[in-house]
């Protein structure tokens, strides 16, 4: 059933407060157990052999020497994984091409990127497993490779997939191409729009691939038993989706695999899909012993989900008084080794913040010899926002209009027709612009070489399949069993708060925990900022289900009709105006006698949550540029974001601050660096530099609450919007500081210095 529950304003006791998170004490004492913290008796250590080549045909793999090494219990290669047809199949709601997934998990005909898995061993120790990898002989025929997105689109580029023809173009192409798909969105007549414009700005932007950079490397432990059942402990954003993918790849029945989600040390979209899990199960199946695989940081960088590097062209036209008339964009995104980048949501988010009559967006999803990109917080949106918000900044500056006022003139509001499909519902974009404008940080005087930048972000947010169970214990406490993974943001506590609010009890009477895959029905991955939105809706459904049962039970016990009983403040009491008088019963009182009056009471929800509310944010950043070194220092940062309703404001602030700092890293430091040989040169945190505490200031988070009409508490979701604007905001601030618009990121010192020197040289000449 698809479910939407409308928003009802109400007096709140728990929602909106800041209790200590339920998983907090375990996390500050070292008790919390993550993927690598699980072990089983007799377990083997699995290690993966990875391609050193960016593109190579695999002629043969000889594992005999490795198998002969004492202590080696199993080796798997492509021969241990079934061929999958070239078709899109739903595995737990994620539609993926299993032809590609099985090839990403273990290379078949070709190795398609540096780090691509080619074989794996399980041995009695890590040292033996590593030694065994060296004994595997792979005969590679090295092929020409291509990494840059524009290079890969050229007709004579090395083609990764001989069977890949560009989709959604007519006539059907007669030559294979790295362009997997072409997307197009149109509204109005963009050419006519540009003719009407007083000012047209066109710019081209290039960004480098970055990694989600979660601190916990992927880790899993699999145990396959002789009756064909498998247990899997893994760090995942969605254990049901991992179960589905493993079942498909290993040709097992879904019920034969039980997945236990461990505590997850960050994901940000990077733990939505399997890597080592099917390999660990396959090794365990062969070795008849449990197998544990923990990725190294090097493997995480080389083989798991980075983002696209991209090329984006943006052209926008506006009137003299700052009304945007026409907007055009071309997005070229790296997909990595297999089709499926985030270019589709990126192209749908490009201009959605603004009400523009004439829009044309064309996008290409391009396969290149890099790891298959994975989702990363508002997938694809920051890259295109960098382009669009830079162009808007330039227009506003040229016209002498305040950048926030310029955006206010054009801001989307309820009823604005999007260019990709629906009209926007109730949204809070304007409120975020106003909140940013009113913030004292917007008026702090700036010094020399300092500049201020503004940018905005929009994200759709998502709902999807969700289930939970709420068991009322005999002492009136509640065990809340969740199927959506708390991927770090404090979801467990937010959902426990919603349950406490509904039932009218204290939040410390609710103990939330994750289910394994046998305890609840299917749940989608925690992605699309859906955790509190969809999980919250499921908790409301389950709580109301329990309340209905509590009312019925109280009515029976008190021997009154059910409609004489209402649930209020944690107890069943006579409904106002009812002729039936009876002594109220608290939750604890009913729970105490539940067993003897018909059995224990529980609430359930199995829903497909609809009605996700779009989120918007406006960000202001002040930077200082060191003209001698090119170093950009972030001085001040402000984000105003509409979250609908902040269930636990401290964790919402955490999402805003965390997303902003990831965005700062993307804008200033982070990039994948490839050598001419197509190998990644910086697969470690020393050379791939994520922001540290001394790189960033406090991030002032302003929570804006324009309720989502399609959620009982007005929740929109808040995890992703925050990362969208930093790249653009920082580029705009740097331009304000030094008068140079740099359209390539990251704005690392060498790049900024080069731009400063180039500008100086041009001035002289």
């Amino acid at each position, binding site marked *: 059933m698809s479910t939407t529950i409308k928003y009802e304003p109400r007096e709140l006791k728990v929602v909106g407060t800041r209790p200590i*998170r339920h998983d907090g004490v375990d996390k500050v004492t070292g008790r919390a157990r993550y993927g690598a913290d699980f072990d089983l008796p007799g377990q083997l250590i699995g290690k993966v052999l990875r391609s050193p080549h960016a593109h190579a045909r695999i002629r043969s793999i000889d594992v005999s020497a490795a198998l002969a090494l004492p202590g080696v219990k199993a080796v798997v290669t492509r021969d241990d994984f079934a061929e999958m047809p070239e078709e899109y199949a739903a595995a737990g709601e994620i539609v993926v091409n299993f032809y590609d997934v099985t090839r990403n998990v273990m290379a078949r005909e070709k190795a398609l990127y540096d780090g691509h898995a080619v074989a794996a061993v399980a041995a009695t120790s890590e040292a033996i497993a590593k030694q065994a990898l060296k004994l595997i002989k792979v005969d590679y025929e090295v092929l020409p490779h291509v990494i840059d997105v524009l290079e890969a689109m050229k007709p004579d580029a090395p083609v990764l997939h001989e069977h890949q023809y560009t989709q959604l173009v007519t006539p059907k192409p007669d030559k294979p191409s790295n362009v997997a798909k072409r997307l197009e969105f149109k509204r109005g007549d963009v050419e006519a729009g540009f003719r009407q414009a007083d000012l047209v700005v066109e710019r081209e932007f290039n960004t480098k691939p970055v990694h989600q950079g979660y601190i916990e490397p992927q880790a899993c432990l699999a145990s396959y038993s002789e009756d064909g059942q498998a247990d899997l402990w893994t760090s995942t954003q969605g254990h049901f989706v991992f179960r589905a993918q493993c079942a498909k790849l290993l040709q097992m029945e879904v019920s034969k695999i039980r997945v236990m989600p461990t505590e997850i040390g960050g994901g940000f979209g990077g733990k939505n899909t399997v890597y080592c899990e099917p390999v660990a199960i396959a090794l365990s199946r062969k070795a008849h012993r449990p197998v544990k695989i923990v990725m190294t940081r090097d493997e995480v960088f080389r083989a798991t989900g980075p983002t696209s590097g991209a090329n984006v062209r943006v052209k926008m036209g506006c009137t003299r008084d700052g009304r945007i008339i026409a907007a055009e964009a071309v997005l070229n995104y790296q997909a990595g080794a297999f089709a499926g980048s985030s270019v589709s949501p990126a192209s749908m988010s490009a201009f959605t913040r603004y009400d523009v009559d004439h829009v044309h967006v064309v996008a290409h999803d391009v396969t290149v010899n890099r790891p298959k990109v994975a989702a990363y917080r508002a997938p694809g949106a920051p890259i295109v926002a960098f382009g669009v918000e830079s162009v808007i900044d330039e227009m506003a500056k040229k016209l002498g209009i305040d950048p926030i006022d310029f955006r206010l003139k054009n801001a989307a509001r309820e009823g604005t027709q999007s260019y990709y499909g629906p009209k926007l519902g109730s949204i809070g974009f304007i409120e975020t612009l106003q909140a940013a404008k009113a913030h004292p940080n917007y008026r702090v005087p700036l010094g020399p070489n300092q500049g201020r930048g503004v940018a905005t972000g929009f994200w759709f947010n998502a709902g999807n399949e969700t289930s939970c169970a709420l068991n009322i214990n005999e002492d009136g406490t509640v065990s809340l069993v969740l199927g959506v993974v708390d991927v770090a943001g404090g979801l467990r506590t937010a959902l426990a708060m919603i349950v406490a609010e509904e039932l009218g009890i204290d939040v410390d009477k609710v103990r939330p925990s994750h289910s394994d895959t046998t305890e609840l029905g299917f749940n989608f991955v925690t992605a699309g900022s859906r955790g509190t939105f969809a999980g919250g809706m499921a908790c409301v459904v389950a709580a109301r289900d329990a309340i209905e049962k509590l009312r019925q039970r109280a009515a029976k016990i008190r021997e009154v009709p059910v409609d004489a009983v209402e649930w209020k403040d944690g107890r069943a009491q006579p409904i106002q105006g009812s002729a039936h008088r009876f002594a109220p019963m608290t939750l604890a009182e009913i729970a105490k006698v539940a067993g003897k009056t018909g059995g224990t009471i529980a609430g359930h929800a199995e829903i497909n949550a609809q009605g996700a509310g779009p989120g918007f944010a406006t960000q202001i950043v002040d930077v200082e540029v060191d003209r001698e070194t090119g170093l950009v220092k972030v001085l001040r940062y402000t984000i105003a974001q509409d979250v609908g309703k902040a269930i636990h404001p401290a964790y919402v602030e955490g999402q805003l601050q965390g997303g902003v700092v990831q965005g700062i890293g993307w804008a200033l430091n982070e990039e994948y660096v490839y050598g001419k040989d197509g190998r990644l040169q910086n697969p470690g945190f*020393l050379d791939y530099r994520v922001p540290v*505490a001394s790189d960033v200031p406090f991030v002032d988070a302003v929570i804006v609450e324009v309720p989502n009409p399609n959620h009982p508490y007005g929740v929109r979701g808040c995890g992703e919007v925050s990362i969208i604007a930093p790249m653009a905001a920082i580029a705009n601030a740097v331009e304000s500081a030094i008068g140079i618009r740099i359209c390539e990121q990251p704005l690392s010192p060498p790049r900024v210095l080069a731009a400063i020197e180039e500008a100086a040289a041009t001035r002289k000449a």
Partner: protein
Amino acid sequence: MTRHHVSATVNGDAVEFLCETQQTLLDVLRNELRLTGTKEGCATGDCGACSVTVDGRLVCSCLMLGVEAEGKSIRTIEGMAQGENLHVLQRKFLEHAALQCGVCTPGFLMSARSLLENNPNPTESEVRYGLAGNLCRCTGYHKIVEAVLDAAREMRGA
């Protein structure tokens, strides 16, 4: 492979373990002594998730060999709380929501304690530089810095 016999003190308890020459202290703590509160984020000294103190000095346990622990006193996250009393820093991290996924948290707590032992009254900037060896990808550091400053205040009795 011969294994070395090592005696050390961990969180006040005398321990003995056998380890191979190339095993890191991190590996020993996690896999020989089963103290998995100390985390591995990189194994190259770049993330600080494996921070512990050795004779009072903060180290990345991934950069030290297990055999080097001979005769040393090691403190890990598991020894930070005293009975049911959390360390002030632990409490402040909870109160300030200074953790999300929490995988960086043990390392941050060890570093922060060491920082405050050396500098009981740090400025914001000193906290930021003092913790610059620890990566957190979730929080943006905002609430971590607030928690440490607040803990310092309370520990000074201010």
